[in-house]
């Protein structure tokens, strides 16, 4: 999804940033404040979230901040369905997440894939 959407929008993305954190290789507008907000939400650190939330609101406005919070939250649910039901990772993105992309993103190091051998 990230790869497709950045290609169409003519943005640049370094897929390894997905697992390793943002670098200069990813050029998506306001990626820094959005990723910082997403990471703070996963950390559940209330003070860090508050600061990151204000940064997004100041940079992108109320509605974008609310939508960023909503998207980050949505993926706290999606991942749990995928992992608890045991949905095969090979079916992600209609089967288009080929091994080369998983390797480039660093996803092949994840427990589930390592366990699968």
């Amino acid at each position, binding site marked *: *999804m*990230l790869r*497709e*959407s*950045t*290609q*169409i*929008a003519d*943005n640049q*993305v370094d897929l390894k940033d997905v697992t390793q954190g943002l670098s200069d290789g*990813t050029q*998506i*507008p306001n*990626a820094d404040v*959005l*990723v910082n907000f*997403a*990471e703070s*939400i*996963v950390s*559940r650190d*209330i003070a860090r979230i*508050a600061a990151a939330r204000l940064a997004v*609101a100041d940079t992108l*406005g*109320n*509605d*974008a*901040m*609310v*939508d*960023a919070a*909503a*998207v*980050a*939250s*949505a*993926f*706290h*649910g*999606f*991942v*749990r*369905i*995928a*992992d*608890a*039901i*045991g*949905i*095969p990772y090979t*079916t*992600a*993105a209609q089967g288009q997440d080929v091994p080369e992309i998983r390797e480039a*993103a*660093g*996803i092949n190091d*994840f*427990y*589930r894939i390592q366990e699968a051998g």
Partner: protein
Amino acid sequence: MSSLPFENCDFEVRQDLIDAHQEAWSRIASPGTWLTGERRIAVAAEIRQARACDFCQEIKDALSPNAVSGTHTATGALSDAEVELIHRVVADPGRLSQPWSQEVLAGGLSEGEYVEIVGIIASTMIMDTCTMALGVADTDLPEAVAGEPTRYLPPGAKVEAAWLPVVEPEDVVETDEPLYPSPKVGYIYRGLSMVPESMRNYWAMANAHYMPGEYIYQFDKTIRALERPQMELIAARVSALHQCAY
């Protein structure tokens, strides 16, 4: 705690998001397919309890989830199998395994109960995370609604690619009621399909946070205040931090 979703929020929250939370909490409190309303609310309470469980933190910190032994700090309202399912899925979802899921089922849960509980976990995690992200307290758990579960088992549900039974689009029957918006829905959409009501309730709520299915593969469009690459960057980073390979 807040009696209404997003009560006292310092930011303006779109109405469809507020409505989605209200509707989802109301459905969680109602009798489900395999669980009563009372048990479903007990599941929601256990999900919140898991956030403060020391043993869950030990598991998460361990090199292998199987390397530590101990007992979850639980509410006491649910069985050991239910507690194990809830706490592990809440705290360390990226390191679950098929043998682990089989052990949970062998502990006394039916496949339908397992899937229904996972639906409540996913819904509650989304809603509680969203309120936390916006600086608002958890919404009060509603009072359970009395009544009996429907115990509807889709005849087409079967174990194939996933660990738990799934209804593939070609196996949907009329009694399943509308299940899929398209026969080409992604596999994540099918995850809860063994319990159709849970699946419908979950996606009605989740779509208000991300986007309805018809927009998923329209990469040049956005219905939110963020551009699509911005949304997908957030999605990918959150998924990776959960070690989700899907």
